[in-house]
């Protein structure tokens, strides 16, 4: 029973990581690729880490996996934010189909200030 849960978690984690890779490849512009990269990968890796925690079962291992997950959850969004801002600022090629661009007016004002 214990193995089956670990196995399922592992495979689903792997699956999400693979989807993240696919996402990066298929999405048209930078910002959308970031969606895939940060969200899917964090989920994938998170699942694998929980699988590890369950597999070993010792307190130390659970704490270590939990710490790794927290670190990931902490760093991934900040990284994505910075990257997005930098990409947008430096005139990344944006997808035509984009419906709303909230950052446009704000970006102009900030550009002048620099």
């Amino acid at each position, binding site marked *: 029973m214990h193995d089956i849960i670990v196995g399922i978690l592992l495979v689903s*984690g792997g699956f999400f990581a693979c989807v993240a*890779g696919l996402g*990066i*490849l298929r999405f048209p512009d930078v910002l959308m690729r970031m969606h895939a990269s940060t969200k899917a990968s964090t989920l994938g890796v998170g699942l694998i880490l929980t*699988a590890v925690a369950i597999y070993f079962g010792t307190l130390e291992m659970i704490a270590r996996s939990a710490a790794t997950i927290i670190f990931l959850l902490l760093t991934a969004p900040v990284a994505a934010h910075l*990257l997005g*801002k930098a990409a947008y600022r430096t005139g990344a090629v944006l997808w035509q189909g984009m419906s709303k661009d909230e950052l446009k007016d704000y970006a102009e004002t900030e550009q002048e200030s620099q």
Partner: protein
Amino acid sequence: MTENSGFLTWASNITLALLLLGMLFAVIRLRLGPSLPDRVVALDLIAAIIIGFTATLAVAGNDAIFTNMGLELGLISFLSTVAFARYIERRIILEKKATRPIERSTKG
């Protein structure tokens, strides 16, 4: 630490394969990536997958030693993305100072 059951080894192998497939896609994006931010996104994903990789190895190899690297990588892989982001931003300002028109960053 008994040897893994058949199902578990099968599962970990599949996960490893999926992870590495994702990594392969990322490397392709790294090659194709029109602009530098695309490439940085690919690198970010590779870092995340490596953490996953070490975790799966811990299960496959039935040894807790692998998790150290994952833990540490989780913390510091963030810095490379930050450094890249800063580079992307600063480069444009330097070019502006050098009064060259902003060419759409098609080349990395």
